[in-house]
């Protein structure tokens, strides 16, 4: 049987990989032996969040809470108080349901709890608007001390899962529902709090996170055909945001476009804008969902309808470039 995790050769770039949620579930199994202090909490969606892999491999470290997320979140805080490191896992919308527990019992009390949410954004697809969390990054970013992470591909999910385990404090991490492509090179190294330049360019910088990174890379290729050189940054830590890298990109490329599968209010775009205002002003455009709820459809259909495909990123880049002052 094929073993998940680090022992496996990384899939080739661009090949069809696991969904981010499956990558997360397998990462937990890979990490379990080396980190014997973490436990996994689920609210009857282990099949959906990828934690079914962990449940099968480590049943005694897996705790079921039924469909009761508020209790699960605060229980996690209690477990953390006894020295365990709990991973609270459910869908992103249901993390919002337990938001106040995450605020008070987890973050305010300073507990080392990892909240890992699958099914964020339009990427959820057919389940429709009720299930597509477009507000989670904004909501969790607003909690003092909460670190917010949104990895882009299965390799990064594995690295980020270990990194957040090594970080002592509350973290919210987004995975994803749909199968994704491998977009990061095998020598990629995730660092909490750091953005990474995945592809260099001089005319504009596209800053993306999560599933939007693949679209940003496609956009950069499309722009290259029109002789526009776009830099692509994977900003997988949304909070704390990498101010230094953003200032450098603003200085070197003169404009920035953000791309996220999230409401344009409060998520990556806002975080980048806040950073630019405070450090190095430059024209910026935001690609994301324009303050609407989603609906049923396949992720790519929804991305087109709601304006977050590579084409929309290209348009935003061109607009940002025209706004540059020479």
């Amino acid at each position, binding site marked *: 049987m094929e073993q998940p995790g680090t022992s496996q050769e990384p899939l080739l770039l661009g090949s069809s990989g696991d969904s981010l949620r499956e990558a997360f579930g397998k990462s937990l199994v890979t990490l379990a032996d080396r980190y014997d202090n973490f*436990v996994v909490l689920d609210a009857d969606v282990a099949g959906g969040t990828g934690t079914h892999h962990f449940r099968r491999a480590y049943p005694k470290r897996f*705790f079921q*809470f*039924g469909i*009761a997320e*508020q*209790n699960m*979140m*605060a*229980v*996690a*805080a*209690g*477990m*953390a*108080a*006894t*020295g*365990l490191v*709990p991973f609270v896992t459910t869908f992103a919308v249901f993390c919002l349901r337990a938001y*106040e*527990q995450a605020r*008070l*019992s987890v973050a*305010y*009390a*300073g507990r080392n709890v990892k909240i890992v949410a699958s099914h964020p954004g339009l990427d959820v697809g057919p389940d429709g608007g009720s299930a597509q969390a477009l507000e989670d990054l904004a909501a969790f970013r607003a909690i003092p001390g909460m670190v917010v992470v949104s990895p882009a591909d299965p390799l990064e999910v594995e690295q980020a899962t270990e990194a957040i385990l090594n970080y002592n404090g509350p973290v919210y991490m987004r995975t994803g529902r749909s199968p994704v492509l491998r977009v990061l090179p095998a020598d990629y190294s995730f660092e909490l709090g750091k953005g990474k330049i995945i592809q260099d360019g001089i005319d504009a910088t596209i800053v993306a996170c999560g599933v939007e990174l693949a679209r940003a890379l496609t956009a950069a290729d499309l722009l290259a055909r029109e002789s526009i050189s776009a830099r692509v940054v994977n900003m997988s830590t949304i909070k704390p945001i990498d101010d230094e890298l953003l200032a450098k990109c603003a200085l070197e490329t003169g404009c920035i476009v953000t791309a996220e599968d999230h409401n344009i209010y409060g998520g990556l775009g806002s975080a980048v804008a806040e950073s630019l205002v405070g450090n190095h002003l430059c024209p910026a455009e935001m690609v994301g969902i324009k303050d609407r709820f989603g609906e049923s459809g396949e992720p790519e259909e929804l991305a087109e309808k709601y304006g977050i495909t590579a084409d929309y990123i290209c348009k935003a880049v061109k607009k940002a470039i025209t706004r540059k002052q020479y």
Partner: protein
Amino acid sequence: MKKLCGCMILFFHMIKVSSCKIRLVFTTNNKKDSELQLMKLACNIRIGCMTAIFHAGSGHPGGALSCADLMAYLWDQEIRFDKNNSEWEGRDRFILSKGHACPALYAAAAEMGVISRSQLITLRKLGSPLQGHPHVKALPWVETSTGSLGQGFSVAVGMAMGLRYQHNDARIYVMLGDGELQEGEVWEGAMCAAHYKLDNLCAVIDYNQMQSDDLNQNIMAVEPLRAKWEAFNWNVIEINGHDFSEIERAFNLARECYSKPTVIIAHTIKGKGISYMEGSPLWHGSVKLSHDDMVKGLQDLGVNETDIRRYIDGTAWN
């Protein structure tokens, strides 16, 4: 090797037991003395609540006074703790899920020597560790931060699960208000604790029948309480929350119960001990105690004129 391990386990167990505060068990001979001692302790807690809230200029006296007797028993007789080491792993955990009643918790801690009595008059003031609702980062021994009803209860369930998972036999005590039972999270937690058979968990309901605006029954009825908890598969004990022999019996029964969590439904009187507050919901919410309120209240608690003046000018504990 096996024998050596056994010896070591016994050795560590002895260390643990020897560092515990031994639970005092009443005998027929000293029962009266112990009860008098507890009554005095509860009275001091009530004086502490009144003085702290008076100096703060705001606070919730009604629900603090109703649980003062329970708090006295818990801290003096039931909870194992080391006042010099709030991190001691073998300590029992106490969580005040009805966080607004924290003046009673702070006053009890002052009586136990966990904090100084003089600190009580810093309640709710800038820079004070005595926050308006208990905050674990300000005061590590409060175990968790509360102030949003229902959450402390779930946190207690999590501690019970976490300690059991790590083979730690400490017990977890959590105090809830009756209005708090209207939070859906409480019943999520109740289901969970029974599902996991958490017999290391003991919940206490300060059942004074009143909440912020009015009687429970006029706001949102919580009855039948016993039937609800029994239906959730808990061991239910119903007592008079101002009678120390009943309180003692309840906690003893809770400790002897296996494979079920215990809830003690303690019937109490809101504002207990202060004549003008007793049974009145007017004193639930964050209120300001006037000079006259304070004089009358402390008179009800049997404090003499000289000491009343000292509590009012804040010099009583200097």
